[in-house]
């Protein structure tokens, strides 16, 4: 049907009024319809669930006590139990107390990093004296693999909350600072000159010209940094903690407790997805003039 012969009447592809065969559009030009879009989006999710269900059923048929791939039903029940049953000893509900512990660490680490990124990024990007002082230093700092610092952090800050928050800060703050600095440096020179001809001081330029224009970028960059923040959080919790999502999955790993690990992984993924969505919606709502960091028309 794709042959390049002359006009072929009556084929499945049909013919145009001038007799030329109306070809199928190129793949890059073919858009899925509304229903098609939903189906295509659902496809990989359904596929994974299906594959898991089959694999789990096969294993369980062989050995009903196999711990590795619990059935989806078992996992659902387990999730419900984790999310509703109080611990007899402490009275806490495991999933929620772990989630609270982890989110406080994550929130503090990412929040402090974002604030540092904003403040240090703006002054290094805008003020030549600070740029000279900090820019090369920051480049070197960002080369240090944060996980290699973890033992040092534990030694210096102890195994409490501080060291975990510090790891997240070491992990994502340099990236945020440099990203914001670059964003400030990319502001058109004309804008900064224009602001000065309107009588703006350095402080006013920061407050009214630079800050509002890099705020959406900060949200964007924070969104991108969240992935590594989770990584550092779970790494720190895996090594030294008494509660937390990462602590829990590494704790129960010893008992091959997939009934806990898998719901936790799904839960962490859901949380990460929710934060990502939240930041994206926030960016769109708060900064209607911002168009994904592209230059203004």
């Amino acid at each position, binding site marked *: 049907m794709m042959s390049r012969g002359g006009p072929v009447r009556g084929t499945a592809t049909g013919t145009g009024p001038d007799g030329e065969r109306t070809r199928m559009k190129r793949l890059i030009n073919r858009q899925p319809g509304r229903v098609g879009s939903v189906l295509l989006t659902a496809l990989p999710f359904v596929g994974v669930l299906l594959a898991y269900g089959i694999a789990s059923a096969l294993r369980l048929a062989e050995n009903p006590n196999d711990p590795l791939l619990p059935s989806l039903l078992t996992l659902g029940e387990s999730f419900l139990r984790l999310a509703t049953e109080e611990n007899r000893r402490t009275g806490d509900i495991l999933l929620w107390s772990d989630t609270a512990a982890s989110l406080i660490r994550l929130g503090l680490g990412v929040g402090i990093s974002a604030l540092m990124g904003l403040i240090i990024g703006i002054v290094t990007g805008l003020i030549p004296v600070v740029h000279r002082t900090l820019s090369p230093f920051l480049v070197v700092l960002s080369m240090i693999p944060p996980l290699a610092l973890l033992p040092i952090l534990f030694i210096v800050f102890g195994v409490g909350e501080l060291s975990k928050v510090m790891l997240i800060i070491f992990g994502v703050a340099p990236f945020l600072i440099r990203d914001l600095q670059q964003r400030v440096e990319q502001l058109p020179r004309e804008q900064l000159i224009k602001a*000065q001809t*309107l009588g703006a*001081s350095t402080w006013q330029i920061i407050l009214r010209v630079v800050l509002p224009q890099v705020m959406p970028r900060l949200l964007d960059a924070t969104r991108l940094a969240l992935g590594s923040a989770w990584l550092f959080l779970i790494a720190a919790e895996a090594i030294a903690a008494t509660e937390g999502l990462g602590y829990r999955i590494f704790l129960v790993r010893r008992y091959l407790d997939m009934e806990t690990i898998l719901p936790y992984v799904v839960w962490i993924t859901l949380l990460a997805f929710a934060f990502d969505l939240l930041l994206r919606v926030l960016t769109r709502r708060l*900064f209607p003039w911002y168009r994904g960091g592209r230059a203004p028309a």
Partner: protein
Amino acid sequence: MTAAIHFDKVWKSYGHDVVLERIDLQVKAGEFVTVVGASGCGKTTFLRLLLGEEAPSRGHILMDGRPLPAEPGPDRGVVFQRYSVFPHMTVLGNVMAGLEFAAAPFTGRLLGRARRHARDEARDMLCAVGLEGALDKYPAELSGGMQQRLAIAQALVKRPRVLLLDEPFGALDPGIRKDMHALILDLWRRTGLTVFMITHDLKEGFYLGTRLLVFDKLRHDPHAPGAYGARITYDIPLGQTDRQVYEDIRTAIGVPESAPLSPQTPPHTEA
């Protein structure tokens, strides 16, 4: 009477590259100076000297007899070809910004009655440039011509002594450019500003200015292209330009033959 702007044997070089050499110039208050010259010959550099964004390598620039401030300030407004407005502020916000900077040193924002005053003043300015219908739009929602109108309003609301324009209409369609010419002449007549306007359109330079400056490199050293800078090769009071001068300039700065040949009578002559 001291000149509004006085260039006293000004040189500008970057490293070994001389861009401008020995610029001597006196401009009276209220003149409309248009600047033409081949691309890359140093017109923007000349404007940056006037802005205070760059310092002369040699010589002095005086403004009303005093040394020009070494950084940009509200006495010299500017409009660039692009990026002159703040994309995160509305049209009204862009014009109010200049008023707010002056009145609110710490927050850069006005509140209450002071804000309403600033808003009214900004709105009047926007009416004067024909943007009264777009007060709450963001610059990205405006056409190129409207963005330049906004940039002009934003500069003029500060009541600068000098207005610097770097190819402000260079990116606009010819029809819109005509409207902009009418606008800028009208504003210039009403405010008595001193205007420096760079253009690559020689006809525009002749039509708008009361005085035309031509920047050109007179000497070339093929072994050291940066050895010599541009100078002011023509400095013509407009209104009585003869055809031959126009032709000479046209060939000197390399405007193609197809460009309109005869300068129109500038609109100031009858005024």
